[in-house]
């Protein structure tokens, strides 16, 4: 793909649930600082792909490398790998029994052994940056969806990951809140973060992605620069999908 070695590499990844294949031989390279958007219909395997990278699912075949080290190796320490990967979920998955600040500092303090004072200072800095400074002591259930998702992104960022996985992070939000979350992601891109996003926001994908991947029924059908995928997709299935999305938008 590029001359720089890939930060994330997936080779022939298969995943089956109850003998139902969900991922079928995925090959994907993500270079450092690259932003990859996964698009495709619901159930096409976007979420599963991200969960496999974070080792929340064990792959049934193939291998995943982060920075040249195989994550999927037998006996490899999954927690060590996950320390370098940040993940944000569609339904936020904040811990409801902890304040915003505790949600964010949990991993830095318990996993990365950052002194509490440092962790809190860093968390506050991040909250400041994302306009959430006054919410530090609130509990997640008292925040709006957009605020919760921003907190979830901050939580993932707090461990300074080298790769961020975002799984349809705006799907549960209304349009007004979508923009506030998307602007954060845009800011992350500008700061050089490597990201893999599953998204239904085609306009956003086109805008932010360096590479767009179209997943169809567990197959990585088409990969290319955002401009090319959205203006002249090679595969008829891709064209069909984008057509459908466009029509839905018009309604």
């Amino acid at each position, binding site marked *: 793909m590029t001359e720089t070695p890939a930060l994330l590499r997936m080779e022939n990844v298969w995943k089956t649930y*109850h003998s139902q294949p969900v991922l*079928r031989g995925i090959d994907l390279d993500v270079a450092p600082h690259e932003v990859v958007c996964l698009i495709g219909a619901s159930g*096409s395997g976007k*979420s599963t792909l991200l969960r496999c990278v974070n080792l929340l699912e064990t792959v049934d075949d193939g291998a995943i490398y982060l920075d040249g080290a195989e994550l999927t190796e037998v006996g490899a320490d999954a927690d060590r790998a996950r320390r370098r990967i940040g993940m944000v979920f569609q339904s936020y998955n904040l811990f409801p029994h902890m304040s915003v600040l505790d949600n964010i500092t949990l991993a830095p303090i318990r996993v990365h052994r950052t002194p509490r004072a440092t962790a809190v200072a860093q968390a506050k800095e991040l909250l400041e940056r994302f306009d959430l400074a006054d919410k530090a002591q609130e509990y997640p259930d008292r925040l709006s969806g957009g605020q919760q998702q921003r907190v979830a992104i901050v939580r993932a960022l707090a461990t300074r990951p080298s790769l961020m996985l975002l799984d349809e992070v705006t799907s549960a939000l209304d349009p007004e809140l979508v923009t506030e979350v998307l602007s954060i992601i845009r800011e992350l891109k500008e700061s050089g973060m490597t990201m893999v996003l599953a998204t239904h926001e085609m306009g956003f994908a086109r805008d932010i992605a360096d590479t767009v991947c179209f997943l169809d029924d567990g197959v990585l*059908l088409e990969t290319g620069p955002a401009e090319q995928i959205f203006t002249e997709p090679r595969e008829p299935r891709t064209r069909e999908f984008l057509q459908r999305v466009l029509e839905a938008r018009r309604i």
Partner: protein
Amino acid sequence: MTTSGAKSGANPPAWVKSARQLERERRLRRTGRRSASVATASTVLFLAVVIGVVVSSPGWPRVRETFFSAGRFSDAFPDVLRGFWLNAEIFLIAEPLILCLGLLVALARSLTGPVFFPIRALAVGYTDVFRGIPTILLVYLVGFGVPALNLRGAPSDPAVLGGAALVLSYGAYVAEVFRAGIDSVHPSQRAAARSLGLSHAQSLRFVVLPQAVRRVVPPLLNDFASLQKDTALVAVLGPLEALRQAQIHSADTFNYTPYLAAAVLFIALTVPLARFTDHLAARAERRRAPGGGT
């Protein structure tokens, strides 16, 4: 996750396990075998040490004679077993009553509005009192107190009275378990149910309780196991249940092996229940995992 109906013109490649996967599975099997043999070896070693320590203790010959006498065991077993049926009966009759009582009390405590204050207060008072009294004390109080009242129609069978005491005691525990389950259902569920026009009672019945009950099944089964053992407390009132039979036999011979016979019977009943609990917990876990439920 369901795959969309369109079976795609995406020339679905068939999955043939790659050499890498075969190698991975081979290594997984090998580490699996290794940890299994380590586990087996350590278990055997542990048991050997425990048995060795017990058997080599100075008092072991006496203990073997008084607690593990095969002859006494087979002498006492038929009587203890007959007594044990009474335990089983008490358990089987008390358990449904306890569930009903516990559920009613938990629901009474969840009633809102000033109208229901007396009912709520009664429910709170009931759990406070009957959880506070040691079960054996309650068995005494009910077992000797109720007949002393000389009420017409009041039961005088010690097994029935003992069973009633157990129902009162365990009803209070189970009520709290149910209440914890009801409280653990997220308020948004109730909000969704009410928004559909379901009444308070209907949202409890169709939305909150089904989720609550599913969540509290493991702790409830834990209470069942506890109840099974506590049926032996009824022995203090004199009915011929397992513990009483064992007492009679050991009093005859100054040998404690009959108690062992009773213990074996109780274990034989609780172990299947424990496995059943594990099975339910594992099933619930599977259903919550991604890709489950299909």
